[in-house]
């Protein structure tokens, strides 16, 4: 286990910058966001959580696949290849680190491997960063409800936590181990600090956010039973605007659209995020749209995360980071809906 002092964090950042690309939270107008760091001094760990989720490190909002020229032959079209330097994704909260494992199911776990996701994932070392368990959680978070600890190292390669003015770092995976061993700006941690680290990880499991823990299977079953109760869904979607804010900030929403953008004869075929909340998401070429109503779309979103996903992959596709709740223009809270469903 290693440590460094918080005010020397820029030394660590500089060392990582020397080894590859560093992506860390940066303060912007509307809040913190993960951005590529160009200057070691930019790294700032005084954030609660980022506005946008770190999924864009592996699944950027826009990903180019093919570039072409309409005046040339199809054979001249160029596949866009990724040539990545090692990437260090720095300061990922435990709930978000967990989200990468859920996303892995879709982009590589089911047998169909997305080469872009895979390459990005392989090139990246995730530095998890514990929530401060001595201050209460943000009113929108509910990760503990989904069995994620406030200092859960799962999903990270290296896990970090603050202790006073010190930053403790512990390797979680072999990848993290090799990296930590090669970093010279870090000092070895004492036995006392080791103990503190383990105690905090354990204490983080008892840290409570909103709601009480419920079994995945129970939620999944209940939502399945409710699926055809249109009245229930209509009621909960009365406020929903059907915009895409919740899905775009969500770390586990992975729907996308493939579209062509052209400028005169030049074109690019790219993947961009799409959202199940958009009216045209399910619009078919025939003109038929199976989900024209807001309640159908919101039902899809909730049932997909908490019911279908559990049935198919055995895990809820939500990590309780609270981003959708924080960013909903009309204050809809996704877990309150699940809670209501359980009571219905």
């Amino acid at each position: 286990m290693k440590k460094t002092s918080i005010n020397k964090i820029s030394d660590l950042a500089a060392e990582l910058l020397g080894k590859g690309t560093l992506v860390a939270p940066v303060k912007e107008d509307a809040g913190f966001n993960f951005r590529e760091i160009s200057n070691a001094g930019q790294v700032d760990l005084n954030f609660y959580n980022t506005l946008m989720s770190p999924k864009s490190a592996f699944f950027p909002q826009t990903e180019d696949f093919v570039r072409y020229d309409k005046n040339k032959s199809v054979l001249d079209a160029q596949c866009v290849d990724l040539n990545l330097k090692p990437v260090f994704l720095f300061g990922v909260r435990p709930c978000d680190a967990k989200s990468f494992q859920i996303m892995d199911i879709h982009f590589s776990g089911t047998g169909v491997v997305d080469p872009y996701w895979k390459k990005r994932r392989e090139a990246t070392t995730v530095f998890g960063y514990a929530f401060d368990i001595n201050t209460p959680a943000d009113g929108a978070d509910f990760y503990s409800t989904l069995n994620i600890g406030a200092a859960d190292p799962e999903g990270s390669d290296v896990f970090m936590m603050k202790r006073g003015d010190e930053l403790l770092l512990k390797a979680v995976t072999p990848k993290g181990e090799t990296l930590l061993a090669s970093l010279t700006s870090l000092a070895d941690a004492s036995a006392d600090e080791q103990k503190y680290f383990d105690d905090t990880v354990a204490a983080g499991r008892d840290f409570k956010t909103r709601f009480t823990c419920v079994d995945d299977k129970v939620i999944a079953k209940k939502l399945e039973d409710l699926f055809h109760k249109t009245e229930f869904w209509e009621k909960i979607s009365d406020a929903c605007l059907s915009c895409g804010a919740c899905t775009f900030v969500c770390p586990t929403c992975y729907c996308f659209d493939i579209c062509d953008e052209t400028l005169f004869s030049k074109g690019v075929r790219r993947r961009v995020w799409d959202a199940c909340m958009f009216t045209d998401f399910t619009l078919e070429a025939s003109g038929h749209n199976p989900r024209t109503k807001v309640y159908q779309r919101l039902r899809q979103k909730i049932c997909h995360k908490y019911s279908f996903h559990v049935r198919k992959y055995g895990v809820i596709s939500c990590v309780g980071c609270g981003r959708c709740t924080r960013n909903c223009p009309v204050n809809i809270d996704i877990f309150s809906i699940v809670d209501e469903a359980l009571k219905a």
Partner: protein
Amino acid sequence: MDFEPKILGIACNWCTYTGADLAGTTRLQYPQNLRVVRVMCSSRINPSFIFRAFQLGADGVLVGGCHPGDCHYNTGNLYARRRLAVTRKILEFAGIEPGRFRVEWISASEGNKFAEVVTEFTEQVRNLGPQTKFKIEQLPTPEKI
């Protein structure tokens, strides 16, 4: 090299376009920077055409229609006048020089006026230099993250 502005002209079928024809048949000289698109009426012009033209590289946009009261469809240009006035304000607030966008009423018999307006507008845009703010230089590449 001298800057030759690219100017998009959108002309209504019944007046300005015919006026342009007249300018041609009477062999009036005017700069060749204008590329004219014919529409049935000035009110057919969707303001997005103008935004898009600037994005696709126009240095100036000239809209021509019948004189108010003379529109083939009676009131088309009276709606267009209000609408395009707003377009102009939007361009201006976004930071485009208002001199790059102009609306003129040119009747079918005003070949002279057509040539004059085009000459004058071309010079005006030439003096403003290339329009780079809206222009899409190349297909964007996605941001790093």
